[in-house]
């Protein structure tokens, strides 16, 4: 009987360091210390996109991606959906959310309904605006592209994890003249979104978005921890480069492996 897999020490130590940083910064934030967060243009443009849809009297389209609810990108997408839906409800602008995964559908319905309640406009919420399309990847892309061509939403949001369908949807949205904001952690799809959308949240910006939009001190703390962890990684990489010049090996992880079952 083994209670710890020593082959995963290389994952455990950095994870514990990072968890310590997150908790530490959250405690710091709770004490009221002001934390600076850099501007993210894609998130600043959300208000502009919602405002444009409101002025034009057209709906907003929000696609939460193709992944299931147990993926961090989808959770991040739901967080952003809540913020956008609250603003849209405040402006009395319709937001439509086509879904590919039924669990995501249930969560999205709850998120949008709550957003309308928070905005004080529960009467505007329509169950049909957050709807299920299909589990088929390209069926979903066809439905979203068709919706864009027929309804001409003024603002399209593609926030979540996407696959090959990303370009079909983003290029169709481009042809309809909508303002488009994308956010994904799927690096193969990033070039497509950057090309076809007005603003793109790249990788970690997707996860930072709900924190950035909410501006709640405790959440900002976790964002600062991410920055600090990146600084540590940069220092470690630079140390490795300098060490290599002097024949010092900073690879402490040799002999350990991250592979294992049940991960």
């Amino acid at each position, binding site marked *: 009987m*083994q*209670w710890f*897999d020593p082959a995963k020490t290389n994952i455990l130590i950095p994870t514990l360091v990072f968890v310590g940083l997150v908790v530490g910064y959250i405690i710091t934030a709770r004490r009221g210390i002001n934390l600076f967060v850099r501007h993210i243009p894609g998130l600043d443009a959300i208000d502009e996109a919602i405002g444009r849809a409101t002025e034009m009297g057209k709906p907003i389209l929000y696609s939460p991606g193709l992944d299931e609810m147990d993926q961090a990108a989808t959770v991040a997408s739901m967080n952003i959906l809540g913020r956008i839906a609250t603003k849209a409800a405040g402006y009395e602008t319709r937001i439509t959310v086509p879904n590919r995964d*039924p669990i995501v559908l249930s969560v999205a319905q709850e998120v949008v309904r709550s957003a309308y309640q928070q905005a004080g406009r529960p009467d505007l919420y329509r169950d049909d605006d957050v709807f299920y399309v299909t589990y088929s990847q390209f069926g979903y892309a066809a439905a979203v592209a068709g919706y864009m061509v027929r309804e001409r939403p003024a603002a399209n949001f593609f926030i979540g994890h996407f696959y090959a369908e990303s*370009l079909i949807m983003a290029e169709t949205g481009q042809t309809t003249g909508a303002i488009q904001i994308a956010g994904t952690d799927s*690096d193969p799809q990033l070039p497509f979104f950057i090309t076809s959308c007005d603003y793109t949240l790249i990788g970690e910006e997707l996860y930072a978005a709900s924190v950035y939009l909410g501006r709640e001190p405790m959440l900002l703390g976790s964002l600062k921890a991410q920055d600090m962890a990146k600084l540590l990684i940069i220092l470690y990489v630079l140390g490795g480069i300098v060490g290599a010049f002097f024949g010092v090996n900073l690879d402490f992880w040799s002999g350990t492996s991250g592979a294992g079952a049940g991960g």
Partner: protein
Amino acid sequence: MLERTLPILLATVAGLFMAAQFFIPHPAMLRIYNLALDWKQIVFGCTLMLGVVSLIRFHWRKVARRAPGAFYSGVALVSCLATIGTAFFGIETGLYPWLYDRVQAPMQATLFALLAYFVASASYRAFRARSVHATLLLAAGAVVMLGRVPIGDLIGFDAGGERWSLGSLASWILDVPSLAAKRGILIGVGLGMISTSIRIILGIERAYLGQSSGEGQGRS
């Protein structure tokens, strides 16, 4: 109270367990992990029903209201119900696999093939040399595209006993600057994922429950 606390408590316990089981190779942990995966499949099956109900209700209302596009909603309804109906007469043989092989699969392949045209139109926009960055992208794109086809290896010269070709330059672009940027993005994504998970486990990120994060907690 329970409506708000119970889901957060469940998320915290499940999150901590999933993190712990990754490091603990005890058979009991693996059993619980597999059980959790089985339950996930069961929950997914049940929610799929919700999806189908949502789909039918959505299109039925459009047909009933004779809203614009009601005809297409009718087609979607008939297709959905007909596919479900044919499945009762056999999944391996009969009309159901025929519908999949002869209707659904070709439609999906057609849409996938359309990507080629979308790539062309997106490339036209991306590769226009309007600025220094766009010009660099255009040059790098041209080198990589040429370097990945057989002619790329023929364009070059021999020096110092080595072959310097567009092929090797394309490989260098993909293996060094491109991969460095990709790894930078992936490290950020990894940290973002862990950070989001910690926020959920600690119960301070709850927008996924339809509540604003930090709601119900003292703001500092």
